[in-house]
């Protein structure tokens, strides 16, 4: 402080300014002039500074985007943080940082950034979608639904329609994971209506309808897809599966045959085709077959059920149930011949009831049916549904 004292003494010795300087307006004018000069000088410096800051921010941001796209989230995170040093308020820097944080599985931190961004632009689709994903990850269903819906109706930077559609698809996936099939179906109907006739998109919608167990709409979507591309194996397989689930086996047979022919490696469709063929071959309730043919099919179904009964011999309560079925089957067996069936048309119905019962009980006790047994079950379902 001794130094200060010396300088203070020096200051007190400084000569006073001439009196004309004391004039208030002159002083104010001089100070204003000085302020303008300094202001201009600092403006020049400021331009240099901001240009450098912007350039550094952009450089780090570009690196961050590259790393984010390459899923190198750690590096992307550091680069976005560096970019934010130079433009702390930049929306896209913050958004990308949040996405890197989501990528690196730090949702809480990402959420804090995203909430800030959301407050600035509540209509931003990217931010709403990111927030929806975080809420979905954290099991906050209501929040997730709110943000998904926001995202669907938000504004998007590029290709608004596609982005909104993708957001809705993500919402449907979320609903399907929650097993909220009715809500998912409602969203799917809206999605299908807004998608147009794009083959791939309609096929995807068909798949989603299938997962939502809305087979009618699924079939419709696949058919729209097939209108644009008749050889689309996935759509053919989907249409076949949808028709199969609806119980329209002739249509299923048509699509599945096409699907297997378009993609012979599609084992699912091949299996389903085989079952469909069996259904079509074994169904005694088909209208276009003769009485003799129907009787033959009943006799065959009865025999198949008998085989299933024998192969499914188990003990305990199951045995008791099987015993009853077995007794019923054994009791009826002497009457089940083509001649008897021709003589007594009501016998066919009774025989098929026993067959269906045996197949259903056996499936419940011995596990999923395959081959002819499965076909019989499907015929039962269709017949009883009718």
């Amino acid at each position, binding site marked *: 402080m001794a130094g200060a004292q010396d300088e203070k003494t020096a200051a007190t010795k400084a000569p006073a300014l001439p009196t004309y300087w004391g004039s*208030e307006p002159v002083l104010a004018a001089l100070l204003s002039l000085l*302020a303008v000069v*300094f202001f201009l000088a600092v403006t020049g410096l400021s331009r240099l*500074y901001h240009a450098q800051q912007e350039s550094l921010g952009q450089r780090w941001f570009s690196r961050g985007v590259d790393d984010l796209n390459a899923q190198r989230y750690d590096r992307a995170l*550091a680069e976005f*943080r560096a970019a934010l040093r130079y433009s702390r308020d930049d929306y896209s820097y913050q958004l990308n940082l949040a996405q890197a944080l989501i990528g690196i599985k730090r949702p809480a931190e990402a959420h*804090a950034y995203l*909430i800030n961004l959301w407050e600035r632009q509540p209509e931003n689709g990217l931010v709403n979608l990111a927030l929806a994903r975080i809420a979905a990850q954290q099991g906050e269903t209501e929040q997730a639904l709110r943000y998904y819906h926001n995202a669907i109706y938000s504004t998007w930077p590029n290709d608004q329609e596609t982005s909104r559609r993708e957001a809705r698809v993500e919402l449907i996936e979320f609903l399907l994971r929650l097993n909220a099939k009715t809500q998912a179906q409602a969203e799917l109907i809206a999605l299908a209506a807004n998608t147009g006739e794009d083959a791939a998109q309609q096929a995807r919608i068909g798949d989603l309808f299938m997962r939502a167990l809305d087979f009618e709409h699924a079939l419709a979507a696949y058919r729209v897809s097939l209108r644009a591309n008749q050889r689309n194996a996935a759509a053919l397989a989907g249409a076949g599966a949808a028709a199969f689930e609806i119980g329209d086996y002739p249509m299923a047979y048509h699509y599945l045959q096409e699907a297997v022919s378009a993609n012979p490696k599609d084992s699912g469709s091949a299996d389903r085709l085989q079952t469909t063929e069996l259904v079509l071959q074994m169904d005694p309730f088909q209208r276009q077959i003769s009485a003799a043919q129907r009787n033959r099919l009943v006799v065959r179904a009865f025999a198949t059920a008998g085989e299933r009964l024998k192969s499914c011999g188990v003990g305990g309560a199951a045995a008791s149930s099987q015993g009853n079925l077995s007794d019923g089957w054994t009791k009826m067996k002497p009457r089940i011949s083509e001649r008897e069936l021709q003589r007594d048309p009501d016998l066919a119905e009774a025989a098929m009831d026993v067959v269906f019962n045996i197949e259903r009980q056996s499936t419940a006790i011995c596990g999923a049916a395959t081959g002819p047994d499965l076909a019989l079950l499907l015929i039962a379902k269709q017949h009883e549904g009718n």
Partner: protein
Amino acid sequence: MSLHSTIPNHEQPAEGTASWHERSPKALLQLMFREDRFFLVLSVFIGVFSGLAVVCFRFAIDWSRIYLLGSGVTLTPTRLILAPTLAGLVIAALVMKVFPLARGSGVNQTKAALYIYNGYIPLRTGIGKFITAALAIGSGHSLGPEDPSLQIGASLASALGRRMNLSRDRMRLIAPVGAAAGLAAAFNAPISAVLFVIEEVIGRWTAGILGSVVLSAVSSVVVMRWFLGSEPLFRIPAVEMARPSELLAYSVLGVVGGLASVLFSAGITALRPRCKALPRWTQYFQPALAGLLIGLIAVLGAPQVMGAGYEYIDEAMHGRFTWQFLAILAGLKIVATLLSFVSGTPGGMFAPTLFIGAMLGAAVGGAQHALLPHLNQSPGTYALVGMGVLFAGFLRAPMTSVFMVLEVSGNYSIILPVLVANTFAYLISRSLQPIPIFDVLTRQDGLELPSMEEQREEDILRVEDAMRPVAGPVLGPEDTVDHALREAETAGAEGVLVRLKPSGWSSVTKQELREMADAEEGGIALSSLLGDRRIPYVHPDHPLETALRYVDRWPLVPVVSRANFGKLEGVVSQRDVLERYREFGEG
């Protein structure tokens, strides 16, 4: 009715400077008026120049960081070690050889300018502070830009004031005006800056001071925002208090913050004199050694402690770190700041205080969330409250601490947690560390500046502590001299008090009454004889020193009620006043 109006004209206190004595009262009044007005205009210019200087200071800090440490966030170990160490050597040489007054934070130097040096701060000190603090903060020393900005503003203001040939009273005030401008621009928070300067530097509120300080702070912030934008220091996440029970959690934060403040203060109090006492040649190496140790802390995994650290406060608010790491960061920042500050490296303590507070707050928030998950507060809220807590506990500026958080967050809903936590921190800090850190520093520098906290806490003697009931007669204006004389003789009093109309008081001694009676004025009403002999009166709540101004000229000074000036509460004499002071002095 003001007390001033009760003082006769010839009792007006004289102004202090010799040059003022030489002027006629009219010229004096004109000059005062002109200077007052011009001082306000000058305050705006001070704000503009300080704002410009602080903007350049920010540029300088950022540029030195980019060129010394690099532009990214992942820094190489070589730079982390070399930058603060080598910068420390350069800074020490500059401080020792060129800018000896640039050491330390700058707040005390500004106070010293106000109370000791008649507002004088050499411009060279401001320039030195600019260069050395920019180098120090940019190279990673754990210091902040706010206190240096405050001093840069004060030195600019002082230089301007000297050029304007201001009176001594104005010169004394000009440094705090510049200080407010510098701090406001550095903080982007004009209210906090004004409050801090009033609360910690000037220590009193008057319309004149407040007007100048506010004008300079506002104009500097306008300039700063023009060049650097209006975004706040931190991006504040959504802040709210869902349940009153959360205040308990904030109380815990207040207690922890209070203890941390004490630890931080005690560290500086203990280490700074020891470092200063080392041989002079070691002072060339102390900043470099501090820089080396800080670099090592950074290399070992905590580069966040380097520099002002605002970006990390921001990240802590957004939940980047685990609560355990946040607690470690708070501890390491205390160590790093101690190293930088006690080594004499120029730079401020505001930013480190905010950093420590934010980390501690977020750590306490995180720990509480781990223990009590139903307290679903964001780490940002705790970090924000934590900043205020350290500000209240360490810097001991309770009002500023509250307004600073409100101003920075722009959210009024955080007021209750801030008030609760800051109060706890302030009380704990005051009880465990009775002398505030700024007073510790001034005393270590061999100065005795008035302590604002002591002033606030000071017991004030009031007139009511010394007054006594009226013993002698109190007469009305219509009473005659003979009646008054009789009353005085009956009561055995040396004089009587006379209530005048429409208001006011007078007194007359028994001797004077006798002389009047002898002059055949015994039948005349007292009011017609004493009408122009009004005496001052005081109110019971006036400071006792107010009464002291009058009791040597009037044997009895009436103490009247504020509600009814005609109602006498008591009287006070010179003996009463001195007796009370003596008792007070004896404790």
